[in-house]
């Protein structure tokens, strides 16, 4: 009889001790993320004013991040991830601001840091210096470029003296050279590329006269090795290729340029080593891949190209060089192609989980 009464007491004493010692949160030993753990990717959804996040593993498989989608500003569009991987910048096209999000690199979640930085009217493209100290925002309707210095610790933006800098009206895209010395702006209506030199403090100065390109020039990209500049001429269905003088910033059209593409070339992705260029042909529903001669810049269509994809509008290169990611005009998925670095051939890979409504921009971290 005694044992039946005291035994539960003994158990309670034990459980109470257990709860006191081990029941509460303990120190996590979660290791920090490493480069071998895949990378983070975010897409902007302007119709819902949110951003959806994924982690992409080494095999190209997408996993939705807990807490996603993340609320954003009004009509989030262009995005980029700071080279440190700690910050995400998002251009809010209707609100005329840039949002700064802090990235939890372990979880992948986003926390917006307010206030948002004001821009010109309709910020529609962004680029950043390779060191992550300067952020450039192209304001389409105000025809200007806002330049911000970036605080490396907090990611906070401070507009540099003289910003915004005037540029062509209705500019639709721009690209910065890897060393950050020159910025090229493409204007669709004027079918021209405008060149600017960039000072160490982010001050822009026009460099030379506008360079003519094809009709409907829409997208521009710079070779990672600073050898060539590519311009997709959407209305002309061509690709203009220029050799780049990395000292003066001067562009010289290579022999044979412009080169024929599929219908409606609208986006350009350059492989990380610069040997392949991929063009999204919105009209012909495919991606054309070119092997680039490193000396002449002459493009040769890759065997097996074009690679079929319905209405591609955005191409982004995986920073590790293993994949090309694509957004299309109607799909609610991120499409993925694995990239054979020896041949340039693209192979369809897994697609992301649904992001509910059509995304317009994609940023991929290292």
């Amino acid at each position, binding site marked *: 009889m005694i044992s039946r009464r005291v035994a539960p007491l003994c158990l309670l004493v034990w459980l109470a001790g257990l709860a006191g010692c*081990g029941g509460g949160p*303990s120190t996590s030993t979660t290791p920090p993320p490493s480069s071998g753990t895949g990378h983070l990717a975010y897409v902007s959804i302007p119709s819902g004013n949110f951003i959806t996040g994924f982690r992409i593993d080494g095999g190209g498989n997408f996993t939705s991040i807990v807490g996603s989608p993340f609320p954003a500003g009004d009509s989030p569009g262009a995005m980029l991830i700071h080279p440190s991987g700690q910050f995400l910048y998002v251009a809010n096209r209707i609100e005329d601001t840039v949002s700064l999000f802090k990235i939890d690199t372990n979880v992948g979640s986003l926390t917006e840091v307010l206030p948002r930085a004001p821009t010109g009217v309709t910020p529609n493209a962004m680029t950043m210096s390779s060191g992550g100290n300067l952020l450039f925002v192209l304001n389409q309707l105000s025809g200007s470029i806002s330049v911000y210095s970036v605080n490396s610790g907090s990611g906070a933006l401070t507009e540099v003296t003289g910003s915004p800098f005037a540029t062509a009206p209705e500019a639709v895209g721009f690209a910065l050279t890897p060393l950050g010395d020159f910025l090229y702006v493409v204007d669709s209506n004027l079918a021209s590329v405008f060149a600017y030199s960039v000072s160490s403090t982010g001050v822009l100065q026009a460099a030379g006269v506008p360079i003519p390109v094809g009709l409907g020039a829409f997208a521009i990209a710079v070779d990672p090795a600073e050898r060539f500049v590519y311009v997709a001429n959407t209305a002309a269905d061509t690709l203009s290729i220029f050799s780049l003088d990395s000292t003066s910033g001067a562009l010289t059209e290579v022999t044979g340029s412009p080169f024929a593409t599929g219908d409606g070339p609208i986006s350009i992705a350059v492989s990380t080593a610069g040997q392949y260029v991929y063009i999204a042909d919105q009209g012909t529903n495919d991606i054309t891949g070119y092997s680039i001669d490193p000396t002449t810049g002459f493009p040769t269509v890759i065997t097996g190209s074009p690679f079929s994809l319905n209405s591609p509008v955005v191409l982004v290169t995986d920073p590790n060089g293993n994949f090309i990611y694509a957004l299309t005009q109607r799909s609610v998925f991120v499409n993925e192609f694995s990239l054979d670095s020896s041949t340039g051939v693209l192979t369809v890979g897994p697609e992301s989980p649904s992001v509910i409504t059509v995304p317009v921009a994609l940023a991929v971290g290292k």
Partner: protein
Amino acid sequence: MTIESAVIRKTFLLLIIILAPGFAVAQNGVAPRWEVFGGYSYLRLDSKSFGFANEANLNGWNAAATFNLKLKWSVTLDLSGQYGSQVRTLNYMIGPQYNWRRDKSKFFVHGLIGKAQDRVDITVGTTTGFQGVGRAFAGGGGYDWYWRPRITFRVVQADYINGNSFGKTQNNIRISTGVVFNFGEIGHHPKL
């Protein structure tokens, strides 16, 4: 009766309970009716399925109540909770257990099914903390060593736990250790 004497009396009774032979151990063909386990638990959580960069190494507790139907067959109710700085997980499972008893040792294997509840502690907008609940099943076993008739040490228990929360499958590994308290008795003492 003074307070001191009451405390001494209760302490004495507790020692009696712990040290007195309540039932013979397995070699005599008997086993406790109830075995109640509590102890430390480590969980390697498949947090990559939530979008984390890595799996999470979590620490916490594990408790179980085992009802012995026979010497070899039991039903176990298993509860556990593990915690980290950004994620915590709870599992509630029940299932059959097979025991193999010899001298002061008991080996067991079990299959469990129940619920997994995972929580990720992040703040998004005005929402703090995201919780996923889904089914869970587990398979595993362990080794117990009888120290006293009413006290057994669970030297080790290892389980594979398959959870399903946040719409994804998690493949988790749990290791536990602790103490088992024995109550009641089943089986028959051998005739002398």
